[in-house]
């Protein structure tokens, strides 16, 4: 009885200001979708970071006959004694955890594997083109990479020292910037959504002022007077969330997965990440519409 009565009232309310309800649903949907996209970006960046954290953190490339950098031109290819010297020096550094030697043969095999989809590129490359190197793992964070690189750079036999963070930092900056932009727009839209919820509820309360005045007169409790409006706001929130969830699935499967295609490393977002984000947006959506309706009603439907 009670539930049926309340849902009947809710239905009347939603139907009576249909245009407002539609606007509300769309704004809630877009703001939640943007918020979710921002969160997916955060997760993507995190995943990429952990991926690289677990990988080789520093590569010390050695001079070979094929390399014509000024550094190598001066000394010629690295000799066995120089290699031993470099390895010793690296092992002696307090920041370094392990040092492994990657021969030209191993490096070429790895290269062939990584670019297996691109045989033309592999065919153009010869075994001797890829220099041998020391792969260095650091004890702590990527922050030490610069110090280690500094101390070994310029040693005889060393061509160049590369560490992924130096390359990835630009990529991270790009992702972080995109994430921040998305979150800022989401926040602006959420504010718009809050104002729209407040307005819709106010309009709805105004449309039904006869009913509510009679309800108050015959002694309906505040709960009974306010619940239809509250449910009305939350239903709009849930519809908005459903739309947002569909948009997020699209963002992940079309946007982020396509972005992944450009990189050879495998840091796809899992479905569980997407589900987590969608659940989070549901909570935000329902809280947002529910709390706003409640606060609006406190102002407009006093005893």
């Amino acid at each position, binding site marked *: *009885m*009670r539930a049926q*009565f309340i849902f009947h009232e809710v239905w009347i309310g939603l139907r009576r200001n249909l245009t407002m309800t539609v606007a509300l649903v769309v704004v809630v949907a877009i703001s939640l979708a943007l918020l979710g996209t921002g969160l997916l970006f955060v997760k993507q960046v995190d995943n990429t970071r952990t991926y690289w954290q677990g990988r080789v953190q520093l590569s010390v490339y050695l001079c070979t006959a094929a390399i014509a950098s000024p550094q190598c031109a001066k000394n010629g290819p690295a000799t066995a004694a120089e290699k031993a010297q470099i390895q010793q020096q690296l092992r002696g550094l307090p920041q370094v955890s392990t040092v492994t030697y990657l021969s030209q043969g191993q490096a070429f095999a790895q290269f062939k594997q990584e670019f297996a989809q691109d045989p033309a590129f592999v065919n153009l490359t010869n075994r001797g083109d890829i220099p041998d190197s020391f792969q260095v793992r650091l004890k702590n964070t990527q922050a030490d990479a610069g110090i280690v690189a500094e101390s070994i750079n310029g040693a005889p036999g060393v061509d160049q020292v590369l560490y992924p963070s130096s390359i990835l930092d630009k990529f991270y900056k790009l992702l972080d910037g995109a994430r921040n932009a998305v979150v800022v727009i989401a926040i602006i839209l959420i504010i718009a959504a809050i104002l729209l919820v407040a307005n819709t509820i106010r309009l709805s309360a105004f449309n039904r002022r*006869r*009913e509510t*005045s*009679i*309800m*108050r*007169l*015959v*002694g*309906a*409790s*505040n709960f*009974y*007077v306010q619940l239809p409006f509250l449910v009305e706001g939350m239903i709009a929130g849930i519809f908005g969330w459903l739309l947002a969830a569909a948009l997020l699935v699209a963002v992940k499967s079309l946007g982020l997965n396509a972005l992944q295609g450009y990189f050879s490393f495998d840091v796809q977002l899992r479905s569980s990440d997407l589900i987590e984000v969608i659940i989070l947006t549901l909570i935000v959506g329902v809280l947002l519409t529910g709390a706003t309706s409640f606060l609006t009603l406190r102002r407009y439907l006093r*005893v």
Partner: protein
Amino acid sequence: MSATQSSACDGPVIHFDNVTKLYPNQSRPALESVNLDVEKGEFVFLVGPSGSGKSTFLRLVLKEERPSEGRIHVAGKDLARLTNWKVPHLRRRIGCVFQDFRLLPQKNVYQNIAFALEVIGKPRRFIRKVVPEVIDLVGLEGKRDRMPDELSGGEQQRVAMARAFVNRPMILLADEPTGNIDPATSIGIMKVLDRINRTGTTVVMATHDAAIVDSMRKRVIELEYGKVVRDQSRGVYGQAY
């Protein structure tokens, strides 16, 4: 103190103790030092010109307004000590009828009356039983499916009275119930109010209608500029009229 404790049955149903109501931005109080008691089962006319404080009196009883000074007890409850969330329970014991009927235009007679019970969470079976009874009581047999705009003014007021009475309130407040109705029809309305009064419900009716007051010979409280100038049992509207 004991008056608050004791059940609502023995004390007056409405008790005004030196009540003054001053609205903000007004120099003259709407009610000034009003002392009065309305006993259970009484029928009281509240008379006086516009602005004399009749509506303020009714609003104070409903706790739609708070008095600036003085104490009000309704149905044995001290209104000053009634918390906001208890106010709905007070209002369930008070029925209200207005000059402008205040029916819901999209609901028919039955639905308008049932609405008052639905919103206080009464079970459907109870509603199905009592609504037809009260429709008969106010004399609207056979019109339960009519919409308000298909009814005459008198019939609409009967629906409003049925809605006010369907929950068997202790008090019925009527604010100019015959104000929009021609004299012949008003007699019918007064008969319904009298019938409601005979069930033991206290009726307080604010009115301008001298003919009705004179014909009923009930208690008359006259207000002027917010003061009680006359309180007479079996009174008339006033010598001057």
